[in-house]
């Protein structure tokens, strides 16, 4: 028989498992194989980083107005600053640029308001984001009202167009996607088959085809004098395509929900829509965050396909710049820079989603 009535005092964990040394040991040198990989990784970084840094920063030219300013070996970032206006605004008239700037400012403010959980009255932020913000932005950017000069959408371009297309796509696609996903799982055969067919058709066609059809074929079907703006057609195409993708992400989330959650909601007397809104969707959206953000990131990049219907987004503006005879051999800088801008936005979305997932984590499921 063993009786132990002494209290053993707590002591700190062994030094080799604590602090930086402990972290290194555990994460980088835990096994011989792991150590080899660590050294190979280090060697790669040592080999790759200095030349890139040298090209992009140390030997690069930043100041000037034309190609002649680029005299050193490295990157010619002068191109970016010389093209900055097109890159931001496309072919928006010089005198009206302030309108786009207000749009950028409002967008930043509203996004911070809605997305940052320390802001007050975020519900109102959300309402404004979905109503006032699109309306005021349309009036501002398109004009034709309140004495604002009309700026046709074919003059929109660059980062502004990319952002407009992605924002509209996301905002329209999410609710339609949710409805499609619910519809696909509906008990009513008419609803579920309609949603299934819709999803499968839109999802199965490349976006480039959809854009092309929206631009070339849609006008053939629409009777005579009604003329739908090319950008509007692209937005509809992108939004519905995106909605079909989102619907499948949401459907996955719906399937992952334990049956008990639906039953508890029903048993308490909640109606179908109450149950969906209060119980099911909050949980489904939470587990679907990675999938939804993945789809949004994809959409953000895919907006550059509008190039084929003659809209000049960020990438298209850059490509146009490359063909400029005054700027020979500039394609590397153009693509690196464009790539970096796309990456920065996508990475931002990804980091935000990670933070959101962490915030919404309320412990394991019941």
């Amino acid at each position, binding site marked *: 028989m063993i009786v132990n009535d002494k209290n053993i005092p707590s002591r700190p964990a062994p030094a080799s498992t604590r602090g930086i040394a402990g972290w290194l040991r555990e994460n980088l040198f835990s096994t011989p194989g792991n150590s080899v990989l660590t050294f190979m990784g280090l060697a790669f970084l040592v080999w790759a980083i200095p030349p890139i840094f040298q090209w992009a920063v140390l030997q690069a030219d930043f100041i000037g107005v034309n190609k002649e300013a680029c005299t050193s070996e490295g990157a010619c970032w002068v191109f970016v600053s010389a093209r900055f206006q097109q890159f931001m605004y496309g072919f928006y008239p010089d005198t009206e640029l302030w309108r786009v700037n207000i749009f950028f400012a409002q967008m930043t403010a509203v996004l911070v308001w809605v997305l940052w959980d320390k802001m007050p009255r975020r519900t109102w932020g959300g309402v404004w984001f979905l109503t006032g913000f699109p309306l005021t932005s349309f009036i501002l950017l398109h004009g034709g009202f309140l004495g604002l000069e009309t700026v046709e959408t074919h003059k929109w371009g660059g980062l502004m167009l990319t952002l407009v297309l992605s924002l509209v796509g996301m905002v329209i696609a999410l609710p339609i996607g949710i409805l499609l996903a619910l519809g696909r799982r509906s008990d009513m055969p008419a609803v579920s088959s309609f949603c299934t067919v819709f999803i499968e058709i839109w999802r199965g066609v490349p976006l480039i085809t959809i854009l092309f059809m929206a631009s070339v074929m849609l006008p053939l079907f629409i009777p005579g004098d009604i003329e739908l703006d090319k950008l509007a057609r692209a937005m509809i195409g992108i939004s519905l395509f995106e909605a079909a993708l989102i619907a499948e992400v949401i459907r996955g989330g719906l399937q992952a929900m334990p049956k008990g959650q639906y039953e508890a909601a029903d048993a308490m007397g909640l109606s179908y829509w109450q149950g969906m809104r209060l119980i099911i969707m909050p949980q489904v959206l939470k587990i679907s965050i990675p999938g939804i953000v993945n789809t949004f990131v994809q959409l953000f990049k895919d907006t550059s396909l509008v190039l084929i219907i003659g809209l000049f987004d960020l990438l298209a503006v850059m490509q146009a710049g490359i063909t400029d005879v005054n700027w020979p051999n500039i394609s590397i800088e153009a693509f690196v820079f464009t790539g970096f801008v796309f990456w920065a936005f996508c990475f931002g979305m990804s980091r935000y989603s990670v933070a959101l997932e962490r915030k*919404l984590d309320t412990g394991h499921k019941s």
Partner: protein
Amino acid sequence: MHAEVEEKEKQSVSLKHMAGTETMIELRGVNKWYGDFHVLKDINLTVRKGERIVVCGPSGSGKSTMIRCINRLEEHQEGIIDVNGVTLTNDLKNIEHIRKDVGMVFQHFNLFPHLTVLENCTLAPIWVRKMPRKETEEIAMKYLERVKIPDQANKYPGQLSGGQQQRVAIARSLCMNPEVMLFDEPTSALDPEMIKEVLDVMIELAQEGMTMICVTHEMGFARTVANRVIFMDGGQIIEENAPEPFFNSPQSERTQLFLSQILSH
């Protein structure tokens, strides 16, 4: 024999408890199939206001299915189910009306993990009963005190033990001020040391006169609170009796076999 059983049962009811004479739930000739599989066969059951019924029987005998028909989590194909004077039909209004009056506690609690304990309790009163938030919070705190966990009100279900979660689930149902409570094996997902805390809450509820139908294999609980014990097998009600005669002198062979199996371990 049935008359005899009923006679005895009436005696024990009047002696032990004071169940009313109003009918709360009535199932008449209820039949249900899953595809070709006949799960419920000719179920007849009347539950009076204030009565406490314990349902037991082997796995797959249709116990859950039967009580889930009462609040239309499952649909029956034949027969009539009346709850508190309302007959269940396919009409959604009708179903939602019945669900307001019928609380249900599940084996796996089914709390809403994205809401706090308090929000779990106030959700249905706010959205279904349309009560002001403030008032629902007071009611919720009252019931959380009754189940002895008022201090957990602002935690999430995932941070509670199983026994605590099940007590929250009971409080959540009570917040709707139901006429009847249905329990589907409320303690079988719990560790032994937590079973008692949940059963204590249920016993208290019974003493206050709540009408209850309880699927459980806790025979001690059945003896203490039940007016009648029902034994089901193969989708049928095989035997129905007051707890004393049910446990001491089961009539049917199947009941005897079942009781010997569950009481032997």
